[in-house]
Structures are given as structure tokens and as C-alpha cells.
């Protein structure tokens, strides 16, 4: 058995010199990294619950309070309904923005070196990791969604809208994880990445339409919100999940573009991590 499986290495490798075509390798790698992420998650689910605490607090404490005092003008929409998509985007953001830590950990543990020595193009590796972050965020978002429903948020039951929301959350997390991996490629140290992650998450969150509508923002925050991919993610989620008017094509387009830029930036820096 053993010899049959391992025998004739040269001949076997010679057959597959080229391997599958490049375009097939990308989905294959994305699938592989997503699977590994799910396997890791299945062995240790505690994080899924500890990470749910913060968004739940936002919904219960912040959301319920502001729902009562009507301080934020959300039109006909209840504030809690307005807030829930923002918190969903936020929980994805918080996971993705620290995803670069994993790549630094893999670097320190020598795993990254081995990954880079496999026939995986740099960009396919980043692509795979970005969508693995998306899967990870999605698992988290499902917990937040369930809590939202329990709190009485008027979420849609339209399966197409839910699929759209899944795609949006995945794209958003893919972009922010690329941002994180790009920073990882620059700072190369876990502690520094933690510091920078902490530094940028709140500005990203507050300079977006997650907590309040754009129209109540001061002018300069409005500008920041315009260039913040999180705003487009929230806009799309709000449109899909609670039915506000949203510019879905623009939102999808901006997020796709952001992912493309993020993958390019992170893959150009990844070799710095392997040295």
C-alpha cells in the first residue's frame, strides 16, 4: 500500500508539470483556504461566541437606547432596524482587520514559507486568504443576524436578498483582510499590526454610515465616508436586509474594485514576509 502510493515520484511529478491552468488554480486555492478556515473554526468555536459579545452589546445597549430617544433621524425606519446592518458590517470589519495577524503568525511559525513554496501564485494565496477571512466573517455575521432577529429587527426573508448580503459581507471582509495583510507586509510585527488595527478600526467605523445617516455628518466626515468602503458595504446591506433605498450596483462595484486593489497591494508585499 505504502509503496503503491508513494512510488515512482519522478514519473508522477513529470506528468503534472504544468498542473491545472492558472484560471482554475484560483478558485481551487480559494476553496482550499476557505475549507481550512472552516476546519479551524470547527475545532474551536469559542471565538465565535466571544466575538459575538461586542456586536450584541452595540445592538442591545446602543441600539435599544437610541431607538427610544429618537435622536438620530432615520426617517420612517426604526433606529434598531437602521443600526443592525451597520453592526453586521462592523463585526465583519473587526474580524478582517486583524486577519493579517494570522499571516504574521504563519510567518513566525514557518508555515508561510511552505505555502509560498507550493505552486500557488502569490495573488492566489492572498485571494484565498481574503475569502477565508470572508468565510470567517460570515460565520460571525450569522450569529449577529440571529441576535438581530431575536431583538425584533425587521430583516428580510427574501432568499435572493440574503444571498446578496452574504456576497457583500464576504467582499467587505475580503477587502479589509487585504488591508490588514498589506499592513502586515509593511510592519512585519504582530504588535505593530495590532496597534495599527486598533488605531484604524474606530475611525473606519465612525466615518461611515453604520451608526448614523450621511446627511447628519459634518462636511469633512461626509468626505471620509465617501471614500470608506465600509459605507458602501453598509449601504448595500441596509438596502438588501431592511429595504432602504440603496445604490446596489455602485456598492458592489466599489467593493469589487477595493478587493482587486487590496489583493494587488497585499500580494506585492507578501514576499517581504517570507524573508
Amino acid at each position: 500500500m505504502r509503496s503503491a502510493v508513494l512510488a515512482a515520484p519522478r514519473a508522477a511529478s513529470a506528468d503534472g508539470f504544468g498542473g491545472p491552468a492558472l484560471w482554475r488554480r484560483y478558485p481551487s486555492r480559494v476553496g482550499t483556504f476557505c475549507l481550512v478556515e472552516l476546519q479551524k473554526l470547527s475545532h474551536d468555536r469559542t471565538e465565535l461566541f466571544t466575538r459575538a459579545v461586542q456586536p450584541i452589546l452595540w445592538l442591545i445597549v446602543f441600539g435599544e437606547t437610541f431607538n427610544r430617544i429618537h435622536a438620530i433621524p432615520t426617517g420612517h425606519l426604526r433606529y434598531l432596524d437602521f443600526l443592525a446592518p451597520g453592526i453586521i458590517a462592523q463585526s465583519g470589519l473587526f474580524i478582517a482587520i486583524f486577519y493579517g495577524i494570522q499571516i504574521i503568525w504563519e510567518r513566525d511559525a514557518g508555515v508561510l514559507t511552505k505555502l509560498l513554496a507550493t505552486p500557488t501564485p502569490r495573488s492566489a494565496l492572498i485571494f484565498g486568504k481574503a475569502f477565508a477571512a470572508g468565510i470567517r466573517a460570515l460565520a460571525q455575521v450569522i450569529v449577529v443576524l440571529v441576535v438581530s432577529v431575536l431583538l425584533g429587527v425587521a430583516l428580510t426573508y427574501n432568499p435572493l436578498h440574503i444571498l446578496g448580503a452574504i456576497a457583500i459581507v464576504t467582499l467587505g471582509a475580503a477587502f479589509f483582510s487585504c488591508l490588514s495583510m498589506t499592513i502586515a507586509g509593511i510592519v512585519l510585527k504582530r504588535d505593530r499590526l495590532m496597534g495599527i488595527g486598533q488605531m484604524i478600526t474606530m475611525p473606519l467605523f465612525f466615518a461611515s454610515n453604520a451608526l448614523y445617516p450621511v446627511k447628519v455628518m459634518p462636511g469633512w466626515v461626509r468626505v471620509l465616508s465617501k471614500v470608506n468602503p465600509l459605507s458602501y458595504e453598509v449601504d448595500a446591506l441596509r438596502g438588501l436586509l431592511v429595504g432602504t433605498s440603496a445604490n446596489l450596483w455602485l456598492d458592489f462595484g466599489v467593493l469589487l474594485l477595493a478587493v482587486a486593489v487590496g489583493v494587488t497591494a497585499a500580494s506585492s508585499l507578501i514576499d517581504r514576509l517570507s524573508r
Partner: protein
Amino acid sequence: MTAAAFEEQPLAAVSCRGVRHRFGDHAAVDGVDLTVGRGEVFGLLGPNGAGKTTLIRLMNTLLPLQEGSVSVFGRDVSRSPMAVRRLLGYVPQQLSIEAALTGRENVMWFARLFDVPRAERRARVDGALEAMALTDAAGRLAGTYSGGMVRRLELAQALVNRPALLVLDEPTIGLDPIARDGVWERVEELRGETGMTVLLTTHYMEEAEALCDRVALMHLGRIRAEGTPDELTAALGPDATLEDVFRHSTGGSLDDDSKGGLREIRRTRRTARRLG
């Protein structure tokens, strides 16, 4: 190319010509010519900082080639890095497994990354685990493995691709003697069964003498002596060891760490610590 045609080509497994690599002002590899024949177990020996790891990272495409040429089974590392990676199984110096996955998941991960066809994947993964005597532990999280088991798991990850060339960078560093023997036994068995080419680095001279068909002694970025262990030692006298050959050809000792880059020493210590 058909498998048969590939077999018939008289190519060296690895061929390095005039290879130089600098990190800033420091020449880690300083003009290396080296040929590893097909089917050989070839040992690259030298103290920390000799340039062994840098040379290996040039062969497996992890570092860009600055000067000279390196080819693996006739494939140029700069021109066809993907083809070269497909031919290699690589076990780095550090213990590098995903502790949050089981042993089997770790091997399956690499089977996918090497594009092992879906229909063969399970059999190949099981075969690699079995060859490394890890079948019973395959369902356990790799984080619970001992140092020797982790090394064998890494070998299984490298073997699942059926590499033409297995590259082992200090495979027994930090392992206790029993675990070390376990790793070498597996490598010997494999080689007996598959005839695969093995390139390894080590600074354990006794191991190299016992296991390698040919060795090259490396010091300060250069190859100082090359040949079969017998050839090299015979030149010095009946009781000479590779350690003596090394001292003779470099004037230094293998235990001399003073030339080792700080980063490499740190990495070695970290590996040793993780192994307890």
C-alpha cells in the same frame, strides 16, 4: 513530456552555477557551483550562517536569484518557478504545522495546494500518513503532537505531492536522539522504496556520514569540500571523521556559531524551545 522520456533524460536533480546572494553587504552565498545527482541523498553541511539555508531558498524559489543560475531537473528557478515548485517537497528548519488542524487536515491541505487530483487525494494522504507512521494520530489536533511527530507530519505534507526532490533543512534539529532516529528511518525507507532524490542540510556530522551518498562542506558562503564521506575522510587518514575534514578545509569548527546570523540563531533556538 511523457514520464518515460523524462526518466531517460540525463539531468542532474539540482545544478547550481556561480551562485551568489547578498543580503546588504553580507554575501550569504558567495560563488557556489554544485550538482546533486538523481537519486542521491546529498548532504549540505556546515555551521550556522554558512549559507546553507539561503542556498536552499534559492533552489525552492523563495528567494529571487541575484547572480548565477540554479536549475532543478533542468527547470530554471527564475524562468519556471511554478514547475520547480511542483517537483519539490520542502521541509523548512522551523517546525511548521498548523496546530489548530488535525494531522490529516494538515496533509490534505498540502495535497490540495499541490493540485493532487481529487480522485487520488484520500489515498495519497492516507499513504503519506502511513509512511510516516502517523495513521493512528491522524485525527488528533497537530498541536498535541510531540516534536518528532511534528517533523514526520511535515514530511508527510512534503511527500503527498510525490516530489522528485525532497529538500530537508536541518530535519532533526532540536529533536531528541530517539525522535531523530525515527525521522531518519523514515527518510531511509522512503528512499529505498521510491528512489527519490534527497537534499538535506545538517550540522550533525555523524548523521551525514551514515546517511548521505555525497556531501558538500559549506563555510562562509562557499563550498570547501565535496565528495562521498569516505573519499573526504580517507584523504585525511584512516580514523578521520567529517568533523576533521571540515576543520582541515576551513580552519574552523562546526560548533562555531560566531559567524551565524543572529536571526538564524534565534530561529534555531525558537525551534528548540518549541520542541522542549
